[in-house]
């Protein structure tokens, strides 16, 4: 029993010190944002590798998720003769939930893991330490541009995911299953509220982008600089980002849609 308590105390302490390091790291990242404004080129390069390179996976996944939603939704709705509501059902699920959450998870897997591995290897090959010795702050030069790029990309990718998903849903619903196209779009138009649905979805994706970029960059920066250390850090990024996104999604949903 004492050994167990000791273990519990020890691991709690380790978790809290890590949280402390991560928070301090975040403060340093945010402090660098101002100086980033003077160097938009650094940001553009990262927007490309974090955002643009995630386009394909987001588009394809969005398409399939929308198609499946439409298929599943149709079978349930047709039991009640409410096939016409398919449009609003597909759009609401995507904009409120699946868009931000699934694109967040894909983002963590595609861009987050790449960021962790990149930063971790830069640390292992002394590039970060070399920069420090050249009097260049690696957090400002390397980390902050990647963080801001993640923050900007995530809502855009989520919007892309939802848009492509809706098109996929329309293709299956109207093309394959024969739902009336006019009803599909008009029900969607009247059923989706700009503030309640779209803005809340954007807020979610911003939060997910913030959290998963932070986790990915911190895990890379905090990685033990060996091959094994970097590989573990990459795994932790994906696992921790997934947990955080799903957990935060529940909290945000409860806050946003709880009053209805």
């Amino acid at each position, binding site marked *: 029993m004492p050994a167990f308590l000791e273990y519990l105390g020890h691991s709690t302490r380790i978790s809290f010190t890590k949280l402390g390091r991560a928070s301090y790291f975040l403060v340093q990242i945010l402090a660098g944002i101002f100086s980033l404004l003077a160097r938009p080129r650094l940001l553009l390069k990262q927007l490309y590798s974090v955002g643009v390179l995630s386009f394909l996976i987001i588009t394809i996944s969005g398409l399939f998720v929308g198609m499946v939603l439409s298929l599943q939704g149709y079978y349930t709705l047709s039991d009640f003769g409410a096939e016409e509501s398919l449009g609003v059902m597909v759009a609401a699920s995507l904009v409120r939930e699946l868009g931000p959450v699934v694109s967040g998870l894909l983002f963590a897997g595609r861009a987050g893991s790449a960021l962790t591995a990149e930063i971790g290897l830069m640390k292992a090959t002394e590039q970060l330490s070399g920069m420090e010795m050249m009097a*260049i702050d690696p957090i400002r030069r390397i980390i902050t541009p990647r963080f801001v790029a993640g923050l900007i990309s995530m809502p855009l990718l989520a919007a892309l995911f939802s848009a492509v998903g809706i098109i996929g849903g329309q293709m299956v619903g109207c093309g394959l299953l024969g739902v009336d196209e006019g009803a599909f779009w008009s029900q969607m138009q009247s059923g989706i509220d700009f503030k309640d649905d779209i803005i809340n979805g954007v807020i979610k994706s911003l939060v997910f982008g913030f959290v998963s970029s932070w986790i990915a960059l911190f895990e890379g920066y905090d990685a033990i600089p060996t091959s094994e250390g970097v590989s573990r850090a990459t795994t932790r990024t994906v696992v921790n980002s997934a947990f955080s996104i799903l957990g935060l999604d529940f909290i945000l949903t409860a806050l946003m849609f709880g009053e209805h």
Partner: protein
Amino acid sequence: MDNHVTPPNSLVSVRNLSFSRGTTKIFDNISLDFERGKITAIMGPSGTGKTTLLKLIGGQLYPDQGTISVDGENVHQLRRTELYNLRKRLGMLFQSGALLTDMNVYDNVAFPLREHTHLSESMIRTLVLMKLQAVGLRGARNLMPNELSGGMARRIALARAIALDPMMILYDEPFTGQDPISMGILVHLIKSLNTTLGLTSIIVSHDVHDTSAIADYIYVLSGGKIIGQGTPDEIKQSESEWVQQFMTGAADGPVHFHYPAKDYVDDLLSSGKRY
């Protein structure tokens, strides 16, 4: 108890330095001086914290006790911006070269110039080509770091280290893992750069032969203490058995071949339980 008088010509002086990692004492109350314009070598077996000493001098690590001053400034009491200003005057050559892998050779050497100066691109071009010429790799400017051999990477890193015309260069194991030709080139470069640019050099190395060929002064470290110091000739004639073993590379001596272990026969005949 400071019984060391700082020589007037000292650029870096380390006083009563102690540093430990966990429970291991890396340095135990040591004092060293690095003279301006000279090449000073820190030697000792692997794992004696030689690289740690460079990181302490560069302000990347904090000592448990003692002070380190560089050009009259106490490194560990500087504010962040002052520390960064001091680092602009230091060059450090990492063992791996630490080149930025997403840029080619030219951009790597131009990197500190672009970050710290407002020079025009044509001026930067001139400077970069001059630095590359000094290390003999002007023709390699378009290569990427992964296309370079280890020796070339170190020379490029050296060109980058001298890009801002520092007053001092810290070399971390510059000779490790080099073939005889690259080794010869590096030895020659370190010596000639030190003379022509009026630098001060600190070399951390365990390579006895080549280091003592170019060093003006040598400190031999082991177990957190200075166990020998002097000019290369003095070191070679040292009476310390330990220094002799290190300089000649004998397999057994004061430093035993065997890592501490229990009795061999007992160990073989024991049940084989894990400890």
